[in-house]
């Protein structure tokens, strides 16, 4: 388990990391507890690694919304590994389980796993938010605006959701709370036109960051997905290399459909990162495993509540540490 030692050392040697991981432990305490407790339970219940053991392990993972096919692959690999190393004691298999789960998070290159936002050094950074209805796009924009502003950046927002009742007022309210300017048109106007105006205004006011809100849309609505592609093209036309991030906002309570969301939104807008919201609830957020495993899109931010400070940069190591803290302690 030297890998975990490394992780643990890293957190203990570094103050700010300790804080981050604490936040995660806090926010994910329920997740962490139930998840690792279940694996511990599992191990305690079985002295031998047999079919029943794997069946129950499968359930623990599925209950965390990891995704059926990811779980099946994982179990197959585990079975092979157990056979290869000739393990029959369930205590021993625990380390193999953790290793495999961590592998999925990190993918091929462990070091690159924590990907921050792609910010332009001395130029306008444009970030486009996309996602299905009600996942937390507008709220995340408010929170991120606050975070970036407190880093000393000049932030502007643009109200690209011209459809939903009260959407423009909602973003305006966030603008007020965070004290940043909001570019908006009236309800029912063309979203691409608002975004265009937002870019123009951000350029002329020499803003550092422009956060673009869009209306929630279900990924199977072809017309609405085309509309989104158009919005993105408008941004591309105005600024080469923009949008610098297209963030897909996913609700952690979402089940298997999140994969379809990630896939279709990527096709329409070339998603560069994921914001996983509502992790302060009881949903496990295991879908992150499936999405990283099957689509390779990194999670960049995590929503842990409705307050302006409830946004964390996604740190996979802290996330994994949070999930497995109990297991690491013994």
């Amino acid at each position, binding site marked *: 388990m030297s890998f975990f030692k490394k992780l643990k050392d890293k957190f203990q040697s570094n103050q700010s990391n300790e804080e981050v991981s604490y936040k995660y432990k806090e926010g994910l305490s*329920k997740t962490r507890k139930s998840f690792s407790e279940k694996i511990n339970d599992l191990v305690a219940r079985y002295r031998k690694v047999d079919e029943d053991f794997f069946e129950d392990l499968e*359930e623990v993972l*599925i*209950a*965390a*919304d990891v995704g*059926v096919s990811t779980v099946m692959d994982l179990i197959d690999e585990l079975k092979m590994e157990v056979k290869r190393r000739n393990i029959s004691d369930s205590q021993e298999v625990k380390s193999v389980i953790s290793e495999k789960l961590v592998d999925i998070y990190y993918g091929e290159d462990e070091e690159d796993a924590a990907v921050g936002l792609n910010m332009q050094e001395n130029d306008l950074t444009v970030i486009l938010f996309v996602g*299905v*209805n*009600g*996942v*937390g796009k507008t709220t995340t924009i*408010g929170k991120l605006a606050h975070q970036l502003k407190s880093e000393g950046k000049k932030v502007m927002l643009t109200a690209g959701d011209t*459809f*939903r*009742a*009260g*959407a423009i*007022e*909602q973003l*305006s*309210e*966030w603008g007020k*709370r965070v004290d940043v300017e909001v570019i908006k048109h009236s*309800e029912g106007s063309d979203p691409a036109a608002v975004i265009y105006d937002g870019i123009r205004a951000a350029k002329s006011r020499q803003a550092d960051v422009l956060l673009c809100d869009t209306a929630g849309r*279900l*990924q*199977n*609505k*072809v*017309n609405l997905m*085309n509309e989104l592609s158009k919005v993105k093209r408008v941004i591309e036309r105005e600024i080469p290399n923009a949008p610098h991030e297209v963030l897909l906002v996913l*609700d952690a*309570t*979402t*089940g*298997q*459909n*999140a*994969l*379809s969301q990630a896939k279709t939104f990527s096709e329409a807008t070339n998603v560069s990162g994921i914001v996983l919201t*509502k992790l*302060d*609830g*009881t*949903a*496990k957020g295991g*879908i992150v495993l499936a999405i990283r495993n099957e689509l390779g899109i990194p999670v960049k931010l995590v929503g842990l509540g*409705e307050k302006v400070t409830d946004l964390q940069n996604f740190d996979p190591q802290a996330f994994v540490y949070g999930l497995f803290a109990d297991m690491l302690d013994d």
Partner: protein
Amino acid sequence: MAFEGLADRLQNTIQKIKGKGKVTEQDVKEMTREVRLALLEADVNFKVVKDFIKKVKERAVGEEVMESLTPGQQVIKIVKEELSALMGGDESRIAVADRPPTVIMMVGLQGAGKTTTTGKLANLLRKKYNRKPLLVAADIYRPAAIDQLETLGKQLDMPVYSAGTDISPVEIVNQAMAKAKEEHLDYVLIDTAGRLHIDGDLMDELIQIKSNVKPNEIFLVVDAMTGQDAVNVAESFNEQLDVSGVILTKLDGDTRGGAALSIKAVTEKPIKFAGMGEKLDQLEVFHPERMASRILGMGDVLSLIEKAQENVDEKRAKELEEKMRSASFTFDDFLEQMGQVRKMGPLDELLDMIPGSNKMKGLKNVEIDEKQISHVEAVIQSMTAEERQDPSIMNAGRKKRIAKGSGRSVSEVNRLLKQFDEMKKMMKQMTNMQQGGKKGKKGKKGKGFNFPFM
């Protein structure tokens, strides 16, 4: 979608059995395993799946499947029967208080669709039951939640009670009740803020509102895309508030919606309505049978038929068909036909409702493109009346003008003209064939034939 329906899943085992001509207990085990996977992929909670599979297995190992000549069909039949039993029957009644106003309270997690559904319910109550609802803005937490409800009220031209955000939701609701009584409004719909079921303080707030106004209905609003957590949420809300029913939102998406089954299983409360879009008239009665098919990936044929019946003018459809046969079909007719098809809703949604359509390779590759349809429409709309009736007068100058008018390229215009021509030829051929009384033989040309928007 990447998901396979249950029927597809069972194919393998069924093939094997066909080879042997005998169903063993092992075969049944394999089939129930496939049933399990199908349900899990549909987001049905694993505990619910476990209980369910047990029941199916018991029946399947008995004579029903083992003795059957069509074991696959038999398994599907058992699964559907058990699912339907679990889901219960249609139940979309809304309570009516002995003494008005009737009070309905909307509760649920953040972003589930409470505010939107409040508007939809109010709309339904007026439209179908001729009621006069008052909408109550009791969400003082989410930014602009009150604006949102007030905007919906304006769209519906219905009264909204709001009192700002400096007053407690409990007090707002009390005041709203007084107003409803005063103005003889017979329904009070309370839109509450989204909250986590584990947030003690906020849950207490709901409990207090409940004990104050004794709602006749408490609807738990749940997002149809919810995963395994649906059981925790539903169980917890139900334990604390004893909800009277569930409304499932965002069913216009492509989620299988297994959460429906989980929620029904743990709460035993009826799912009464389904949100089918963002607009205020997109609330439908929830049909458990159809949901069962959807969860299993068997398509939602009934909804498809209903949709078609609702939106297509049958007489006009017949006339158009007649025109097709007689080959007097013009661009005007074509435009109208496309309009009819479009009225049925987004085409890909329609396709999704057809069982096995995701399996039919041809259909999948076709990918009906709505954008493409708009282009075709634009081109036709840029034609003069004369050109639409008789495309043979088309020349380079006219094509150029049409291209410019529609914002499409000349080659696109050419393509459409060519396809239209082929289509007419095809129709003629088909009609001739039918009239000649020959059966079965498909026109050779039919193979490469495509509608212009496919």
